[in-house]
């Protein structure tokens, strides 16, 4: 009898022990992605990845998703479109990841869109531009604040027209992103009967802009819309500083890539003043939501070690937000069923550290949340100044606005 009790007890312990071990040993939820860690997009890719890693650590500290730890499976796509198909095939067929995130930027993402559509997989987009417009995948959700394709140019031209702008000059780089912007800018201008008095496309590696800026100045435009890449953004602003742009110009900027990154901003310093440019997140009072401040506290510490952009406004919080949306959808649907998660993401508004996000049918934001902000009172050689509010005053969208446009451009430069 005694022996039987002992045996029974031992068995019970064994069963309970086994059960609890099984719970603890549940396999992690794997989220797979490629990320540009070498090549031209690496700077952005690493910052974005850090944002996603901070989310992973936060969610794991809270006990994970569905009681399982979250693990990231990340491969380097070398910023190239030709690497991603093999990587995503490996993630899906060999690593058997549970969920997919897209790599940062349009070019590496474009080749995997048909693949995920064909396989019926959910893909969380990471700052691509109109990559789903032709593919039409209904399980694609972009974390970027772009919104409808023409909203980018439309918001800039709204501001310009309010300031009395009647004709436009276009200065655009011959590159994928800049040309996408240029096309929409021309369309919007045509719809609104704004004549284009100057339309210059320059080759990507141009460094000397004085002749172009002289020609632009001679056209006496009211609105100057620039879509440029980091090295040329700097070259254009230097040329404008040397030659001037004329008193006719009411507003200058729009789509200059590079002016979002700490290194470029501190390098250009006071040359930035007056420029109105797009951005995604800025340290203005209207931009703080639940958890935003905590996120940047963590980011600022880890950015030093990870050797990424010390400010990290442009991409990192959106990487975190991408994780938050998945977290909410998995918690609500209580499963990893991708169709269910996609349905939830499509039908609900999601609270994130970059504000509420709602999607339209094409998986882009319902409304644009791309900021147009004006640089003011920027001094030379000081990264830290960009952490305080007031250096980039938000003019658009109205919900997030923190100031009014100073116009004309020459007046705003001082």
């Amino acid at each position: 009898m005694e022996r039987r009790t002992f045996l029974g007890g031992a068995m019970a312990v064994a069963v309970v022990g086994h059960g609890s071990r099984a719970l603890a040993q549940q396999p992690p939820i794997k989220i797979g992605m490629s990320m540009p860690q070498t090549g031209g997009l690496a700077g952005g890719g690493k910052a974005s990845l850090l944002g996603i890693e901070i989310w992973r650590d936060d969610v794991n500290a809270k006990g994970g998703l569905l009681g399982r730890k979250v693990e990231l499976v990340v491969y380097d796509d070398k910023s190239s479109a030709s690497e991603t198909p093999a990587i995503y095939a490996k993630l899906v067929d060999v690593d058997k990841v549970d969920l997919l995130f897209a790599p940062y930027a349009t070019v590496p993402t474009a080749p995997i869109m048909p693949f995920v559509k064909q396989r019926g997989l959910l893909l969380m987009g990471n700052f691509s531009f109109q990559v789903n417009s032709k593919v039409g995948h209904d399980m694609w959700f972009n974390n970027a604040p772009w919104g409808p394709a023409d909203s980018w140019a439309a918001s800039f031209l709204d501001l310009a027209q309010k300031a009395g702008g009647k004709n436009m000059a276009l200065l655009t780089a011959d590159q994928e992103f800049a040309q996408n912007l240029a096309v929409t800018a021309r369309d919007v201008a045509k719809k609104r009967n704004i004549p284009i008095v100057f339309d210059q496309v320059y080759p990507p590696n141009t460094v000397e802009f004085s002749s172009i800026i002289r020609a632009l100045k001679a056209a006496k435009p009211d609105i100057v819309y620039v879509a440029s890449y980091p090295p040329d953004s700097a070259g254009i602003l230097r040329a404008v500083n040397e030659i001037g742009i004329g008193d006719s110009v009411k507003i200058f900027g729009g789509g200059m890539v590079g002016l979002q990154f700490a290194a470029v901003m501190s390098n250009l310093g006071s040359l930035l003043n007056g420029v109105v440019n797009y951005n995604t997140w800025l340290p203005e009072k209207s931009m703080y939501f639940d958890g935003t401040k905590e996120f940047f506290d963590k980011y600022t510490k880890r950015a030093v070690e990870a050797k990424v952009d010390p400010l990290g406004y442009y991409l990192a919080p959106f990487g975190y937000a991408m994780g938050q949306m998945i977290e909410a959808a998995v918690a609500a649907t209580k499963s990893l069923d991708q169709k269910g998660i996609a349905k939830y993401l499509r039908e609900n508004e999601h609270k994130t550290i970059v504000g509420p996000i709602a999607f339209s049918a094409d998986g882009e934001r319902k409304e644009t949340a791309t900021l147009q902000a004006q640089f003011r009172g920027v001094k030379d050689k000081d990264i830290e100044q960009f952490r305080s509010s007031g250096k980039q005053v938000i003019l658009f969208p109205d919900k997030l606005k923190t100031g009014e446009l100073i116009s004309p451009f020459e007046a705003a430069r001082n």
Partner: protein
Amino acid sequence: MNKRSHSIAFWAAVAVFLVAVLTMTQIVRNEYPFFAGYVILQFIALAVAWSILGGYAGYVNFGTNAFFGVGVYTAVALFKATGAPLVVQIAAAAVVGMTLGFGVGLLTLRMRGIFFSIATIALAIIIETFVMNWRFVGGAAGIQIQRPPVMAPFDSYVKMLFFVQAMLAVIAVATARYIQNSRIGRGLQALRDDELAAECTGVPTLKLKLIACMISGALISAAGAPAAMYLQYADPSSAFNLSYSVSALAMALIGGTAHWIGPVLGAILLGSTQQLLAVTISSEVNVLVLGIMLVLFVVGAPKGIIGLLRPRYRLRAGGKQ
């Protein structure tokens, strides 16, 4: 073994290889090996095609990416305009690549050595700029392509592309092998060692160089053509990526350029290392590993893998040893 039994062994190996590839597409369900294998086969074709001009004739072509991109965009333009099937896309790309090769061949009239190499880099930049401004094929923004339905006996398009690329690699290897053993190959080797002396002894150097450029160009462009359907996307910066030139050259050098098997070995070694590193180390380190490999081979095995394996190739490759 005499020449005839060599030939029989070669074609038997080719048949076994193609049957194995076809069987693999029918049996293996996991698609990743086909995605990765496609890239390795593509590099075999590129490295072998490159070595026809760069190895046999000694004209170092840095413009592999130009020919590759031309192949990609010929396929894209043709597919968009007429919806032409894959075979037609590849054939058209080969014709365009051959024409471009003829142009490059004419360059060799005036330029040799480093000057020729620089001119081929310029060629790639010129063509890329042209494509960037060609709106019909998407311009700088790139273009997304919808694949047509897959043909029997394949159940997925990637498997079919894998088989097609295997065929292209075989065609490239067979061509290189034929050239190596023919009058053309011996003529090219002669002009590599001393162009003036070759011309004086009656080797038709210009004609041979033109032939080598055209064949090499046609093969590279043909190998590039299926890339449009593989990626279902084409953009100038990826299609004309300098890494194609660097990889093709590195693979041929690591394998050894004296024999057609050299670039094949180099492409398999380097191509699979690249694929493996992309999904293991996956950071800046993988670029470093490839760099170190190249340096080690250049220093330790100047005649490549085949130079290490078979000392007699060392004599043939060097010519003067």
